Each structure stands twice: as structure tokens, then as C-alpha cells.
């Protein structure tokens, strides 16, 4: 009898030996209807990364990642105007080894190693209706004009998937779908075009606050006209991105006295002096005496400045860095003021229209001031090593897209009492190193 009871106890224990169980998380859509989600915006929404829009980037676009999570909470398919391969329109960059003019080789963005495929230019309008209406390069008012789909003078990325090129606006196309939920992240290009071309006198201007407000109101009125709910994002303070923060203002390093003395002599009349060690670059400035001056600490040398010209052709020292590679104090202030203004408008409109608000600006600012950590990975706004931004220094990496997707998801969950699961940031690939 005792023996039997021992066996019984053993048996119970063995039965209990199976894996422990935790109650599964059950996603819900709350008050939102996620069945047909459309994403409206610019390159960030399209999945543009590494300097180009291409297949793999599109598959990791933050709205695509959101849609995959929404599908667990009642969401449907998310049809994108996909490129046919990894080359897009041929401007893709990757991280490679580049030999500089002085013979030194180092890690740098280099052109992608596969040849451009013209099939990427062929219209795929027939594959619609689409869910991703992110158009690389779009400013806010572009979304409302039919000219934007024109193959000549319009936007080739949009012309490629517009149903009636030359006659439909992005918003016309959006409104032609039967969407139930939307995301809108727009406004970066309204300052970026100006900033990445070095500010004034370069052919691109900042969108005025009035135009921004009118356009935003027009877009949101349409998006909410059929009763759809949605999420809207703030515009990132673009002077935080690596494109403006990778080349230090004082990267003119003078190593020997002869060079220093020669520079001191040639700039003597302008009252500019040089020291051994790091010095501020010499930049072009039409308002400065002699048309040149030293760059200030709060001014930005663009990522696109030719490094070889600095290293071997005396740019920034004997010759000034051209103004279109520099965002000066005044220009940067204009950019920052415009972004602040846009964000003020976005915040008040979101509140007024009861939309979910993803404050992407806040999270990107945090990446600069204190850094971000997810799944044991540290992120910052540093170029390449920071992990958030792709090799172009402007657009998000795969993990950057995952982080932004989670911020949109959490904003939707908070506003609409939903439980859309977040993506797992560590499941996405980091920036590939050679």
C-alpha cells in the first residue's frame, strides 16, 4: 500500500514535469477599426532607407511593421507599391571600405554593389489599391496637388504607382480606398530640403507655418471625413540627425607648425588665427568680410561634404567649404523655429480632432540627450554606430523603423484603448558591416 502511494506521488510529479505555462497575451483593437489601415507621409512612411526606396527597405517600413502587429488585433492586409528588387531608382548606399585620397582606407557609405534595374521604374498602379502612401520627397502641400503624380515635373516615386498620373493627388488616391484607420507623418521635407542643401540660396525653401497649417487641416479633414480614426506624428528636430552631426565643426586638425604659420599668414588680414590641434573649419559666407569666416560651434557641416576635398584639397582651411555644405547659425535657427511651429500645430490639431499622437520628435531628441535602450541594444543619434539611422544619415535603419513603429503602436493603444502588440526590436537586423 505504501509502495503504491509512493508510485502515485512519483507519477504526479512526472505529470507536473511539463513546461510551465504563462497565459497568452491577447491583442485587441479597442475603439479603433484596424481592418483597412493606410499610411500617409513621405520617405519615412515609404520605407526609404540607405539613400533609396527599395524592396527590403519597404518591407521594414514602420507602417508595414505596424500593420503586421495590427493584423494580430483585427487588422487586414497591407499592400505596398513595392520595388522589384534591392536597387530601387539606383541611389542605394551601403557601408563599405573606401580608400581616401591619402591612401587610408576606412568605413564609409559607398554605392550599393548591384546594378540598377530599370524594371523598378515601370508603373505598378495596376497592383492597387495600396495601403502605403508614403512618397519620398513629399512636403505637406505636395499631398494635395495632382501635379505631383505627373511623370514630368512631378514625383517619380508617386508617378510610379498613381492610378491616373498627372491628374490625381496623393490624397485623391488615399480617399479612393476604403480605409478605416490612418497614420500621418509629414513635415520633415518641409524643412529638410532646405537644410540638406545648405539653407539659403540653394533653391529650396522652408514651408511657411500658414501653408503647413492649411494643408494639415485639409488633409486631416479628408482623412477623418469617413469616420476613420488615426494616428499623427510630430516632426523630428532635424538638426538632431546624423546628417548634420557627423562632421565636427572643428575637424580641421593642424599637426605641424609650418601649416599653422602658413594659414595664419594667409588669413592675417581677416583676423583669423589657427592653433596646433583642432580648429574650426573655414567656410564660405557672403556676409562675412572677404566672403569667408570660421564656422561656429552651433553650425553644421553636412554629411555630404566631400571628405577628400577636406583631406587633400585644403577645403575648410586654405579654401572655404562652400555654403551649400554648411547649415549656418541663422539657417539652423530658421529650421528649428519652423519645426517647433509645425509641432505646435500638430499637437493642437491632434488634440482637437482626438487623434492618437506619436511624439517621434521627443524620442529622437532623447536619443541625442541620453540615448535609448531596447532589448539590450543601446541606440543613439550617432552616425552608423548609433543604430537608429541608416547609412544615408537621414532615414531610419530597420531597427530604427521598429522603434518608431512601437511608438506609433503605443500611441494608438493609449488613445483608442487598444492592445496592439509591440514589435520586438532585437528581431530586426542591425546595419551590415563589411
Amino acid at each position, binding site marked *: 500500500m*505504501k509502495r503504491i502511494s*509512493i508510485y502515485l*506521488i*512519483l507519477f504526479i*510529479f*512526472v505529470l*507536473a*514535469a511539463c*513546461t*510551465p*505555462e*504563462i497565459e*497568452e*497575451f491577447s*491583442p485587441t483593437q479597442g475603439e479603433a477599426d484596424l481592418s483597412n489601415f493606410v499610411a500617409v507621409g513621405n520617405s519615412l512612411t515609404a520605407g526609404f532607407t540607405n539613400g533609396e526606396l527599395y524592396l527590403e527597405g519597404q518591407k521594414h517600413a514602420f507602417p508595414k511593421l505596424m500593420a503586421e502587429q495590427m493584423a*494580430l488585433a483585427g487588422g487586414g492586409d497591407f499592400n505596398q507599391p513595392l520595388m522589384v528588387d534591392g536597387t530601387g531608382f539606383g541611389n542605394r548606399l*551601403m*557601408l563599405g*571600405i573606401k580608400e581616401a585620397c591619402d591612401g587610408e582606407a576606412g*568605413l564609409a557609405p559607398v554605392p550599393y554593389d548591384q546594378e540598377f534595374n530599370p524594371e523598378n521604374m515601370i508603373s505598378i498602379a495596376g497592383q492597387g489599391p495600396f495601403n502605403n502612401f508614403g512618397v519620398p520627397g513629399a512636403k505637406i502641400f505636395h499631398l494635395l496637388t495632382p501635379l505631383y503624380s505627373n511623370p514630368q515635373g512631378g514625383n517619380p516615386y508617386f508617378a510610379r504607382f498613381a492610378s491616373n498620373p498627372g491628374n490625381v493627388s496623393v490624397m485623391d488616391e488615399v480617399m479612393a480606398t476604403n480605409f478605416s484607420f490612418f497614420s500621418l507623418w509629414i513635415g520633415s521635407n518641409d524643412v529638410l530640403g532646405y537644410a540638406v542643401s545648405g539653407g539659403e540660396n540653394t533653391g529650396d525653401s522652408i514651408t511657411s507655418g500658414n501653408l503647413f497649417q492649411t494643408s494639415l487641416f485639409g488633409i486631416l479633414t479628408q482623412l477623418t471625413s469617413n469616420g476613420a480614426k488615426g494616428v499623427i506624428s510630430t516632426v523630428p528636430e532635424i538638426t538632431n540627425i546624423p546628417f548634420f552631426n557627423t562632421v565636427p565643426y572643428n575637424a580641421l586638425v593642424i599637426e605641424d607648425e609650418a601649416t599653422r604659420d602658413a594659414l595664419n599668414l594667409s588669413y592675417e588680414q581677416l583676423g583669423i588665427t589657427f592653433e596646433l590641434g583642432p580648429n574650426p573649419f573655414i567656410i564660405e559666407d557672403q556676409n562675412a568680410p572677404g566672403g569667408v569666416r570660421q564656422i561656429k560651434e552651433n553650425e553644421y557641416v553636412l554629411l555630404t561634404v566631400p571628405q577628400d576635398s577636406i583631406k587633400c584639397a585644403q577645403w575648410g582651411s586654405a579654401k572655404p567649404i562652400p555654403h551649400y555644405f554648411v547649415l549656418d547659425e541663422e539657417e539652423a535657427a530658421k529650421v528649428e523655429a519652423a519645426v517647433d511651429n509645425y509641432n505646435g500645430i500638430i499637437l493642437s490639431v491632434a488634440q482637437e480632432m482626438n487623434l492618437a499622437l506619436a511624439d517621434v520628435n521627443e524620442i529622437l531628441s532623447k536619443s541625442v540627450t541620453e540615448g535609448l*535602450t*531596447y*532589448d*539590450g*541594444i*543601446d541606440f543613439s543619434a550617432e552616425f552608423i554606430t548609433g*543604430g537608429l539611422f541608416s547609412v544615408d544619415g537621414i532615414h531610419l535603419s530597420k531597427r530604427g523603423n521598429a522603434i518608431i513603429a512601437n511608438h506609433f*503602436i503605443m500611441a494608438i*493603444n493609449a488613445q483608442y484603448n487598444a*492592445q*496592439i*502588440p*509591440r514589435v*520586438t526590436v*532585437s*528581431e530586426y*537586423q*542591425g*546595419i*551590415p*558591416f*563589411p
Partner: protein
Amino acid sequence: MKKTFALLLLFIVANSLTYGGGYQVLLQGNKQTAMGLVGTGITLGSESIFYNPGALPFLRDKYSFSLGASGIMSNVVFQKEAPSVYEAETDNPFGTPFYIYGAGKISDKLSIGIGAYTPFGSSTDWGESWAGRFLIQDISLFAVYIQPTVAYQINDQLGIGIGFIYAMGDVTLNKALPLTGSDGSEAGVNMEGSTANYGFNAGITYRPTDQLEFGLTYRSEILMEMEGGDANFTVPQSLAASFPAENEFDAELPLPATINFGASYKASEQLTLALDINFTQWSTYDSLIFDFKTNTPSLQDSRNPRLYDDNLVFRVGGRYKANDQWIVAAGAYYDMPAVKDNYYNPETPDAHKLGLSAGFTYSPSENFDVDASILYIMGFERDATYEPGKFGGTYKYNAVVPGLGINYHF
């Protein structure tokens, strides 16, 4: 004896999951395991070399030998912090802590003994590609203690004993690094090291009456100071200079001090009841610091906070002598976590745990017994995060541990 031990060491990949909080393992005697791992205040055989050296003079026989091992089958499941549908599960190797003891009485008062046992160990394998791989992929650590012991009986009621501990430890771990190669492969580091150090185990046994026994023991902290462990980095080629391939590291891992109190009561000729309280000074484990021999701007020494709490375990058990051949036993314990909620690194799954155990001793002859035990450990669901890595969720743990031992005494 020496040969047997060397053989055992060869065969053992001691990779046990955690008992007694942190990475402590208290499976040092199958009779004790069957009773909820009590042993400080109850004298059952030469296992007292570990449980309470002060009890050796109270052993009935002149010579006592014990040998045994346990098999640990453990599982941890994980669900990422809500809202998330991410789940993961460990594939932990089968752990085999062991013990071997021999004790003898030199005179009426003086006893000596020697034991080898594995009081600390942990083996957790989350796999190469799970979401927490930048914290840990897999880790295996274990310590073997060898303890020569001397004990003295002061009078009929009181015995004291002390053992010198020679501790050997070994740790191997793999973790991923957030760097990706152009073929999509991920960087990682494999770290491996072993070391040895000294400590002691002291105990007092007090028997005020024939029915009652009390025990109190102290095992000292042993700091495993690893020097020149191997750190092998696998990184994309362009970063090889930043992560020297055959680097070395120094690190310290504490095996904390424990204070144990136990008592037992012989309720009748057949029935003995016992309890144990174990206090482990886990707060000594403040952080895990890897000091790399070659540092680069990308590879700095790393300081990983652990901030463990002191830990208490309460145990009760009983054994019932059915006849001259059979003794049955059962017990239970409640174990509190040493790992804090916000410093929970999945390398050491820790939780509030309930242990239930049972077993028997079969004595075919007067000098020989066989012990069998089974222990089921149920971890309570735990929401925890490793704050420095911002990685957390719900963890749940369980384990089944069968064990077998033999004793020879004359």
C-alpha cells in the same frame, strides 16, 4: 576513493539550475532532498559533512560513506512585457550535481571526514537567436567544493565541527553583440574561465534530549577570482581590430556565505520531523565586472549591475520508518528570490519557488542503504526586467529533480 572522484569529475558536466535563490544548489544528500532539503538539525549520515560538520560525532557507525547524484530537468518560459506576443523557452541541459562523502571516528570524541560536492551551479540556454540574446544566450557555471573536515564531541549533547573548503569553479557563457555582418550574421562573444579559492564550513550540533536536535552552521563566502579567462569575439571583418579575437578577461563571481539553522524532533520510534532555515548573503553580489586585457574604443570594460538581495529559505520535512527495510520521507520548502525585479538578467532565472519532495531509503542489509528522492520545484510567475538593458517580461520556472544515492556504514 581518489580515483573514483577523479572519474566522477571527468564525467560530470555539473550544470544545474538554481535552488536556494541565485545560483545555489542544495542537493547534497538524497535523504535530505527527500525531506525538503533539511539537514542542519538532523543527523542522517556522512552527508552532514556538508549539512553540519558538528553532527559527525553523533553518527551511529564508526565509518560512513555516501555517494549520490541528482538529475535536473528544468524549464523557463518567457513572455515579453505587454503588449507583446513574443514568447521564448529555455532548452536547458540536463544538470547533474553530485556528492561523495566519507567519515570515520578516530576516537570516542574525534571524527574526521572528507566530502566533495557541488553547492553552486547554473545552466541556462535560451538559444542563439532569442530576443534577449544581447544579455545572454547560454551560460553554464558550477563550483565543486572539496572539504576535509574534523569534528569533536564536547559532551553527550554538544558536537562541533569545521571543514576546510577548496573550491573549484568554472564558467562558460555566450552572448550576442549588436553588430551585424554584411551576410547578416551577428557578432558575439564566448567567455570561458576557471579558478579556485578557499573557505570553510563550520557547524554546531546540540542534542538537549534524545528526541530533540538543533544545528547551526556557517559556510564562508568564497570569491571566485577569475584571471586570464578566454574572451573570443566574433565580429564583422572591418571591426576585427576593435574586438581582438583572442582577448582575455578578469572577473569575480562571489559564492556567498550561508547561515543555516535547523531542528528535528523524534515524535515516535517511527516518525522524525525536521525544519531548516537557510540564510544566504547574496547581497555580496553587487555587479559582474569584465575587465578585458585589451581595451579598444569599442571594447571597454563592462560593469553589469546585479544587486542581489539576501535570501531566505524555509524548509520542513519528515521521515517515517515503516519497517527495518523501508523509510519513507517527504518535505517542502519555500524559497525567496535573490534577484531583484528590476535587475533580473535571464542568465539566472530566479523566482519565489515552492519545492515539494518525497523519497525513500531502502536498507537490504544493516550496513547498506539506497536512497531515492524526487523533487518538484514550482516557480511562481514573475514580472521582471533587466533595467540596464530595458529587457523584461513574465518569467515562469519549473524543474523536476530525481536523485539516487547509496550509503555504506559499519
